[in-house]
């Protein structure tokens, strides 16, 4: 591991932690603007985290170590993904420690711990959220892995850096039907995994309709701050992945400071753009019934499957 490469990874982690709450704030502000509300400032999520950190820590009556460990595992798995994925630069030497498949399992690790934490206090809401979250995760995983399969076939590697490099080297491959189908599949999976509309409504106030929020209902104070930050980090990673797998231009391919600076600026711009697009999309859709979600995910699965067949038959 070379020093600049480690620096690249460190910058990525710092950047994602700093930007993730602001991205969520930006999405909320966009929504508020489009719905004709004034809305809070974009840094409101950071203020919320700061406020939560200074509140009392609370442990639900019947919960054990799983409940206390889950927020940390969720955040740790998110940060591990940030180390592995090329957001600012493809030249992080740490990227060789895990490929896209490893990313899927790290994401699943966070989900599983959150599900267990939902069950731990023994409330009906927690169990309900946990059961729904694992349903969505179990069905999103095949679509996600197949979409990755499609992308790896295109690049001849499942390594993230190689996939990004291959797109940079041959931008025309992006316009192929295989890539577009894979993009569609990944987008659906990302909406599902990060708990956005139409799968889950992050801003609902009714426990019965929530997935993610009802799982974390028992968290309060600093633990809730960690959970919130981890969820925001996860959303940032997903959007960053989409941005760099399907539009990698501007990403640094070296660890030269100037390149890194450009890479940072570009990735922040891409994240902001994607955040605004998703927030706009969310204004126009309603949440799906829970039992329609599997149909959506099956559609994503089929799109990904077609993407693979396309990349084989149309090359």
């Amino acid at each position, binding site marked *: 591991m070379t020093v600049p490469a480690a620096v690249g990874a460190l910058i990525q982690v710092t950047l994602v932690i700093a930007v993730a709450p602001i991205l969520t704030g930006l999405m909320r502000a966009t929504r508020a603007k489009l719905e004709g509300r004034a809305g809070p400032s974009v840094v409101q999520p950071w203020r919320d985290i700061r406020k939560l*950190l*200074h509140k009392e*820590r*609370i*442990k*639900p*009556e*019947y919960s*054990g*170590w*799983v409940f206390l460990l889950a927020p*940390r595992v969720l*955040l*740790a*798995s998110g940060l*591990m993904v940030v180390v*592995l994925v090329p957001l600012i630069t493809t030249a992080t030497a*740490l990227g*060789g*420690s*895990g*490929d896209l498949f*490893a990313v899927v*399992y*790290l994401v*699943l690790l966070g989900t*599983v711990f959150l599900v*267990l934490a939902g*069950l*731990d206090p*023994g*409330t*009906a*809401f*927690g*169990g309900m959220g*946990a*059961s729904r979250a*694992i*349903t969505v*995760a*179990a069905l*999103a*995983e*095949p679509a*996600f*892995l*197949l979409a990755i399969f499609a992308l*790896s*076939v295109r690049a*001849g*590697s*499942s*390594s993230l850096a190689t996939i990004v490099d291959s797109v940079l080297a041959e931008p025309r491959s992006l316009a192929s039907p295989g890539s577009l189908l894979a993009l569609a599949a990944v987008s659906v999976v990302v909406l599902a995994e990060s708990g956005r509309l139409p799968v889950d409504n992050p801003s609902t106030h009714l426990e019965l309709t929530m997935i993610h929020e009802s799982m974390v*209902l*028992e968290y309060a104070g600093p633990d809730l701050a*960690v959970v919130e930050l981890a969820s925001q980090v996860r959303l940032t990673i997903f959007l960053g992945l989409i941005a760099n797998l399907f539009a990698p231009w501007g990403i640094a391919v070296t660890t030269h400071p100037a390149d890194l600076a450009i890479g940072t600026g570009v990735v922040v711009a891409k994240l902001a753009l994607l955040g605004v697009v998703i927030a706009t999309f969310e204004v126009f859709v309603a949440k799906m019934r829970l*039992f329609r979600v*599997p149909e959506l995910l099956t559609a994503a*699965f089929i799109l990904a499957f077609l993407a693979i067949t396309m990349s084989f038959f149309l090359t």
Partner: protein
Amino acid sequence: MSAGTWGLAFAAAAGGIGTIAALVTVGPTRRWLVGILSGLSAAAGGATAILVLVGHGPVTVHLPQILPLAGVELNLDALGAVFVLAVAIVALPASIYGIGYTAHGLNRRSVQAMYPLFIVSLLLVPAAASVSTLLLLWEAMALTSLVLVAAEHRERSEVREAAWWYGSMSHLSMIAILMALVVFAGHAPGETFEALRMSGRHLSSSTRSFVFVLSLVGFGTKAGVVPLHVWLPRAHPEAPSHVSALMSGAMVNLGIYGVLRVTWDLLGGGPIWWGITVLFVGVTSALFGILHALVARDLKRLLAYSTSENMGLILVAVGAAGIYSSSGNPMLAGVAITAALLHIVNHAAFKGLLFLGAGSVVAATGTRDLDRMGGLLARMPVTGAAFAVGSLAIMALPPFNGFVSEWLLLKSLVQGLPASSVAISVTMPIAVGAVALTGGLAAAAFAKAFGTGFLARPRSPQVEAAAEVGGTMQTGMVSLAVACLGLGLAPFALLDVLRRAGAALPSLWGGEPVRSVGVTLHTGGLTGSLSPLFIGGGLILLVVLIPVVLRLLGVAGRRRVAENWGSGRSLQTARMEYTATSFAEPLQRVFDDVLRPEFDLAVTHTAESRYYVEAVRYRVGIVDGFETHVYRPLIRVAKRWGEMSRWVQNGSIHRYLAYLFVALLIVLLVSQ
């Protein structure tokens, strides 16, 4: 005699002495002697396997005087050694665990005497080097395990039924294996594996296919692949738990061993449809197994179905290896076979662990019903933590061992596409989709097993009163949990030895499929690398660091215990919790076309008004479709056939004389 021969001899001797000790001693002495001697036997077997795997050549033993005509031929090569190692990984902790576990009414002479013999037969089956030796050891394994499955037949009638299913299925599988190997040996100059190997490639293609199909059926039954799995979800739950651990962690692997040995070693590989067949058998088993595991309420039944699923995953890798080798990609086949072998070792560790954990729960609470459990983590902290490790490992999550083999399995399926034929380009995406869906559902199934079994609040009084199990049982579980973590962080230690095992299957091995550079694994073909040590270590480090950072930010460490949120109401009872059934209900609804659950909803109204409900009874039953739609009709036909033969053979001596007379007439007429 070489060190390896001594090792095998010691393993057999320790097992034999264990059996004698079980017969002549009583009370706690019997438990301890059987446990220690079986453990020693397993340790000796494991040590021998490691010797072979690090390159101290195959261990060959020839004992002409034991079996008449043929003699016993043993030859433990690197391929067999991987399976012996997998047996040892489960058998050693399971034996230690058994010391405590058998104190609960299982310290009977018959059971305890069979246990060491079962371990010895498990250790020796992969070393068999001739048809008669293999069949002898195979039957020994089947019979000893049958006695062990039936151990508690006096206590529960389901045990008897399970033993019937198990005995019948393992004998049907024996018939298939016998036919395959006898036909094979009949076409070869001898019955040693050496002779079979030399003639395997030169048989007619119809004979080769006959041997392949029959051995797949025979060995596949032992591996519990769908649709030959019906015995597995019955026998594994009913057996004593340390025996279930051995059956699910070690014995089923030998079915895979048989498929590999006969098809890709002795027959030397075959046409591409062999690989495709194995792959689709694997895909079906994986999906069917995990769907039933997902909806199972019985904890041990859930684990048993998941064994079916994992054997399916291994067969997917084996089938992919076969497809690659038939289409001229031995290097890609090597990646797939490495994935299969690694998963066998990993599965032995985590499934053994999970069954031991389930055994502790059964010993402490007397129930296997997940809907009645809950809150066990607080009552049984060691068992709970060990079960958590096993669950995370089987979900293929870092930093545990399942993650590495599942990653390799996916890689081996993905990498085929760039350099491929039509067969590969159609089968591999299907296989990846199925493996991925299996992975997702496995996460749900084991989140259910651990989450509703060990977390939240107890749902029945006997679970409320549960207490942690004793020291030997804890030792057994903790050592397997450590193995799961160790294999997850440092799989590169195992790669070198798997390379030797793969090289024992020359038709499935080429180049350097998986190599480890430092702590990072690289696969050939479609590139990509993984450093489990870095990912796992990084995760653990971050989990430790986050509270430190929080403390630095001025967050207080102490937590106030508060009541749960109940939408403003207080008084939440354990009956309001999500149960295992309700947890899996959404996924059950998604897959109800496959599972075909039977609902029964009965609402009783009060006498005063039908708008007031007095009681609601909801019952859901899910039966194995293969059992009702395939096996029950077959059993009916067999019974009718039996009744018809009773009419023919009714005990009347006159009728028998008439049969003789008619037969004689026919013979005379035909011979005219």
